[in-house]
C-alpha cells in the first residue's frame, strides 16, 4: 500500500520550518494551513476478494465523487466535476459482465454496496449512458458513464472501515473517517496497472485550524510513504506548472529535501475572481432555463501562446428529470445562439428522448458539452455575461402536494485551449483524467477552470427545481385517482350516449319518413 500525501500552500499562507518534524519513522505536521491530497495505491493482493472479483471484469473503472459544497480547487488540483457520484466503466470484454453467485450484476451490486443502496443502478447496459467516443485512437473515454447525486461519502467510509481496517485498528478507522470531510474523492482502476488508487482532496483542514497530524511509515516498512509540502511557482512555459517546496519519504529520508520541478499540465488555475454562478430564473414552469452568469474577469482568454486558440465551455450533467432538446441546441442559427450566448453544442450523450416521462427513462440522465460564446471585448460586458441554456422537464410521477423537486448539479465551466504540439500531459505526477468532459477534447488541450461562486448562503452547487405534477392525495379526496377515473368514464359515456341518442333520433325520423313514403307509394300504386 503506497501512500502519497501532498500539502499545497498558497503563497500567502504562513509556513515556519518548526511546523514539520521528521523523525526516523514519522513526519509530524502542525497547524499547517494548506490544501491536502492523499493518494493510496493498493496492489491486487491487498484488496478484499469481493472487490477484485469485480475489478477483474473491468478494463477500467474510474469513480469520481465531488461534494455539493463549494470548495477551492488549488493548482495542480484545479480540475472540477459537477457534484455527485460519477462512474466511468469499461468492461474487459465487450460482452456482459458475469453475475455473482446469486446472479446479480456485479458492477452495480458493488457500487450500491460501497456508495449507496439507493443508486438507480441495475446494470451498465441498462443504467449507464454511453458517451460519444471522440476518437477510438485515444480511447481515453470509458465506454459507460453513470452519475447520481450523493451528498455524502459516508457509505464509502463504512465500507472501507469494514473491509480494509483490522477489527481493533482505530487509527485506520479514523483515517477512513477523514474522507467524510473531503471535498472530492477519486478511485481509479485499470487492467494494465492492476492497481487500485484512491485519492481524497481537502481544500482545507476540517475545523479551520490547519493540518495537525503524524504520518507514520508503512507498517511493514515495505511500501513508500511520500510527503510533499509544495507551493506553486511562476512557470516559464504556458503549458507548465512549477512547484517548489519540500519532499520526504517517511522512514527513509533523514530530512525534508527542498525541491523545484515543473511539468506540463492539462489543468490550470484561473485568478480567484474568474467565477460563475448558476440559477434558474423563476417561474421555471415546465421549460426551465439554466442561466450561467460569468464574471467579467473570467471572460479574458487565459494567458498562453499567441497561436493558441481558446474557447469557453460548459459541461452539463443533467438528471433524467431534465433534458435539453438536442435539435434545438445543435442549431447553427446565429440568432438563436446569440440570444442565448451559446456558440455550439459539441457533444451530447444519454437520455435525450424528447417525450418520454421520467418513469420510462431507465438511464440516469445526460451530459452536454456546450461551447459558449464570449464577448469579443470583455470590457464591453457591464457586470456579468449571462449564458442561457433552454431545458425541458419530464413528467414526473404524481405526488400528494402536486409538486416534486428535481435537483440539478451545477455544470462545470472552463476555457479549453490548444497546447503546443508534443506536449505530454501524462508526465504530470498530479494529472487527473476521466472526468467526463476532458476526454471529449484532444490529448493536447489545456483546461482553465472557472470557480463556482454560489449566490446562496449555504454554498451548495445545486439547484432545486419545483416540478408541477398531478396532485394525488393518499386518502382519495375530491380529485383522487378514483374520482379522476370515474369522472372521465362518466363524462365520456354521457357524451357517447348523447351522440348515440341524436343519431337514434335521426334514424327513427328517417325511418318514419321512409315508411310514410312507402305508404304513400303503395297508396299511389293502389290507385
Amino acid at each position, binding site marked *: 500500500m503506497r501512500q502519497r500525501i501532498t500539502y499545497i500552500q498558497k503563497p500567502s499562507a504562513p509556513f515556519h520550518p518548526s511546523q514539520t518534524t521528521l523523525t526516523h519513522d514519522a513526519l509530524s505536521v502542525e497547524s499547517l494551513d494548506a490544501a491536502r491530497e492523499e493518494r493510496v495505491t493498493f496492489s491486487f493482493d491487498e484488496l478484499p476478494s469481493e472487490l477484485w472479483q469485480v475489478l477483474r471484469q473491468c478494463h477500467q473503472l474510474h469513480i469520481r465523487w465531488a461534494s455539493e459544497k463549494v470548495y477551492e480547487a488549488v493548482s495542480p488540483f484545479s480540475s472540477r466535476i459537477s457534484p455527485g457520484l460519477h462512474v466511468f466503466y469499461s468492461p474487459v470484454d465487450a460482452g456482459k459482465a458475469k453475475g455473482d453467485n446469486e446472479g446479480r450484476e456485479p458492477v452495480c451490486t458493488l457500487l450500491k454496496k460501497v456508495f449507496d443502496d439507493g443508486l438507480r443502478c441495475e446494470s451498465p447496459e441498462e443504467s449507464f449512458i454511453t458517451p460519444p467516443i471522440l476518437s477510438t485512437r485515444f480511447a481515453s473515454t470509458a465506454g459507460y458513464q453513470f452519475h447520481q447525486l450523493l451528498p455524502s461519502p459516508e457509505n464509502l467510509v463504512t465500507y472501507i472501515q469494514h473491509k480494509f481496517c483490522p477489527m481493533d485498528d482505530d487509527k485506520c478507522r479514523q483515517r477512513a473517517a477523514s474522507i467524510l470531510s473531503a471535498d472530492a474523492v477519486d478511485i481509479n482502476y485499470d487492467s494494465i496497472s492492476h492497481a487500485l488508487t484512491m485519492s481524497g482532496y481537502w481544500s482545507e483542514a476540517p475545523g479551520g485550524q490547519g493540518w495537525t497530524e503524524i504520518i507514520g511509515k508503512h507498517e511493514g516498512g515495505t511500501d513508500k510513504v511520500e510527503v510533499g509540502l509544495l507551493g506553486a511557482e511562476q512557470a516559464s512555459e504556458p503549458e507548465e506548472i512549477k512547484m517548489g517546496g519540500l519532499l520526504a519519504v517517511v522512514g527513509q529520508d533523514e530530512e525534508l529535501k527542498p525541491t523545484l520541478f515543473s511539468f506540463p499540465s492539462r489543468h490550470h488555475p484561473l485568478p480567484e475572481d474568474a467565477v460563475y454562478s448558476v440559477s434558474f430564473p*423563476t*417561474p*421555471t*414552469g*415546465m*421549460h426551465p432555463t439554466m442561466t450561467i452568469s460569468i464574471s467579467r474577469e473570467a471572460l479574458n482568454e487565459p494567458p498562453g501562446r499567441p497561436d493558441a486558440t481558446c474557447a469557453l465551455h460548459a459541461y452539463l450533467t443533467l438528471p433524467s428529470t431534465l433534458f435539453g432538446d438536442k*435539435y434545438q441546441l445543435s442549431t447553427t*442559427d446565429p*440568432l*438563436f445562439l446569440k440570444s*442565448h450566448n451559446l456558440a455550439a453544442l459539441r457533444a451530447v450523450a444519454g437520455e435525450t428522448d*424528447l*417525450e*418520454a*416521462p*421520467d*418513469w*420510462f427513462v431507465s438511464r440516469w440522465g445526460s451530459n452536454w458539452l456546450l461551447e459558449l460564446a464570449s464577448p469579443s471585448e470583455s470590457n464591453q460586458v457591464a457586470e456579468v455575461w449571462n449564458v442561457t441554456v433552454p431545458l425541458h422537464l419530464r*413528467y414526473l*410521477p*404524481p*405526488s400528494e*402536494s*402536486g409538486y416534486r423537486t428535481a435537483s440539478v448539479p451545477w455544470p462545470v465551466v472552463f476555457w479549453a485551449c490548444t497546447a503546443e504540439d508534443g506536449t505530454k500531459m501524462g508526465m504530470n505526477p498530479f494529472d487527473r483524467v476521466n472526468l467526463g468532459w476532458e476526454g471529449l477534447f484532444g490529448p493536447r488541450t489545456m483546461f482553465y477552470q472557472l470557480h463556482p461562486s454560489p449566490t446562496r448562503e449555504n454554498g451548495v452547487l445545486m439547484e432545486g427545481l*419545483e416540478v*408541477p*405534477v*398531478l*396532485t394525488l392525495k*393518499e*386518502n382519495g379526496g375530491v*380529485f383522487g*385517482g*378514483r374520482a*379522476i*377515473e370515474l*369522472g*372521465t*368514464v362518466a*363524462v*365520456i*359515456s354521457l*357524451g*357517447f350516449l*348523447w*351522440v*348515440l341518442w*341524436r*343519431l*337514434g*333520433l*335521426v*334514424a327513427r*325520423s*328517417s325511418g318514419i319518413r*321512409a*315508411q310514410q*313514403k*312507402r305508404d304513400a*307509394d303503395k297508396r299511389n300504386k293502389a290507385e
Partner: protein
Amino acid sequence: MASIFKRASTIYGAAIGLRVILLFYGAWQDAHSAVKYTDIDYMVFTDASRYVSQGQSPYARDTYRYTPLLAWMLLPTTWAIPGFFSFGKALFALADVVAGWLVAKSLVLTHGMSPERALKYASFWLLNPMVANISTRGSSEGLLGVLVVALLWAVLNRRVYLAGVLLGLGVHFKIYPFIYGVSMLWWLDDTRTKTGTGTGTSESREPEPKSRATSNEDDRNGGTPVGVSQIISFVTPCRIRLALTSLLTFAALNAAMYARYGTPFLQHTYFHHLTRIDHRHNFSPYSTLLYLTAASSANATGLTGLRGPSGSFESLAFIPQLLLSVVVIPLVLGKKDLPVTMLAQTFAFVTFNKVCTSQYFLWYLIFLPFYLPTSSLLQNPRLGITVAALWVIGQALWLQQGYLLEFLGVSSFVPGLFLASLGFFAVNVWILGVIVGDAGGLTGAEKGKVE
C-alpha cells in the same frame, strides 16, 4: 360570367396573396428574431429530408412519425439554393389553395350551388387565416386537407379508382382517413353509381341503412334471413373496386416503404400511435387519466397507500371512438349527406381520441364549407354564435390552465386541466349532436332549402 370569373380570381388571388405574404413574413421573422415563425414540425420534416438526401433513413430524426413520402417530397428543401428551405411551406400552402378549389368544385356537385356561391363557402377555408397560418408555418396538415377533399371530389364524380388510390394514400399518410372508407363504401350504392338511370325511385334503391331497416323490419319480407340478401346486394362491383384499389394502394405503399426502411418505418409511422408513452397534457378528455395510469402502472408514484385506477378504461377508449366514427355515424348519415357525414366522423374521431392537439382541428375544418350552407348554425345565428363562443371559451379555459402549468409551473393538472379538458369535450360532443341533427334533418334545415 364575367363577374363570376372576376370574383373567382379575386378570392383565389387573395388566398394566394395571403399565403405569399405569410411566407415572406415568416422568412423575415425567422431571419430577424430568435423566436421563429416556422413550426418545430417543419424542422423535423426538413431534418428527415436531409438524412434522406445523405442516403440515410428519415427515421434517423427523432420524432419523425410520418411516411417517408413526406421527407422525399421535401427533398428540395435540402438543395443549397436560397429560399428553397421554404419549398415545403410553399407546397403546403399550395395544397391549401388546391383543397379550397376542390371544395368549391365539390360544393357545386353536392349542393347544386352556383360556382359563385360555392366559392363563397369555400372561402371559409381559402381565406381562413388559421389555415393559411398553419400551412405557411410548415405543418403538413394542409396536405391531408387536399388529399381528403380530393377523395371526396373523386367519389362524388364516381371516379372510383382515383378515390381508392387517394384513400389508400391518405391512410398511408395519417391513418385516420380510413374512417372515410366506410362512409364512402356505404354511400356508393347503385343509385349513385348507375348514373343516368333517372333520379331513382325508392324501389330501385339498394339496401337502406341498417337502422332504418330494423325500424320497419316487419314491413320487409319477413321470412328470409335479413343478413344474407342485404350482404349480397351490398357487394356491388363499384364497392369492390373502391375497397380493392384503396387496400392495394395502402399495401403497396407500405410494402415499398417497409422494403426501403424496414421496421423503423412501421414503428414510427404506425405502431408509435398504439404504444405511445408521452402523456403530456392535451385537449383529450383522457389525458389526466392516462397520466395517472401510466405513472401507476410503472409503479412510479412511490406512495404506498396510493392506488392507481382499478379499471383499465383507457384501453377501451377506442370503442366509443370507433363505434361512432366508423359504424354508427356512417350508417345513419352516410346516404343523406356524404361530406357532412365525413365532418361528423372526423369530429367524433378527434373528440373521442386519446390524444388531441389543435392541429387535429384542421382535420374537420376542411368540411365546414359543406356543412355551413344547410346548418342550423347559420340559420339560427343565436345558436351559431353560442356554438362558436363555447368552442372558443372551452379552448381558452384549457389554454389558460396549460399556461399556468407550462410557463408558471403551477400544478394545474387537477382540477384545472382535468375539468377544462372534460368541459371542452362536453362542448365538442354537444356540437357533434347539433351536426348530427342537422345532417339527419332533425332541425328542419333541409338540404337545398338555402339554394
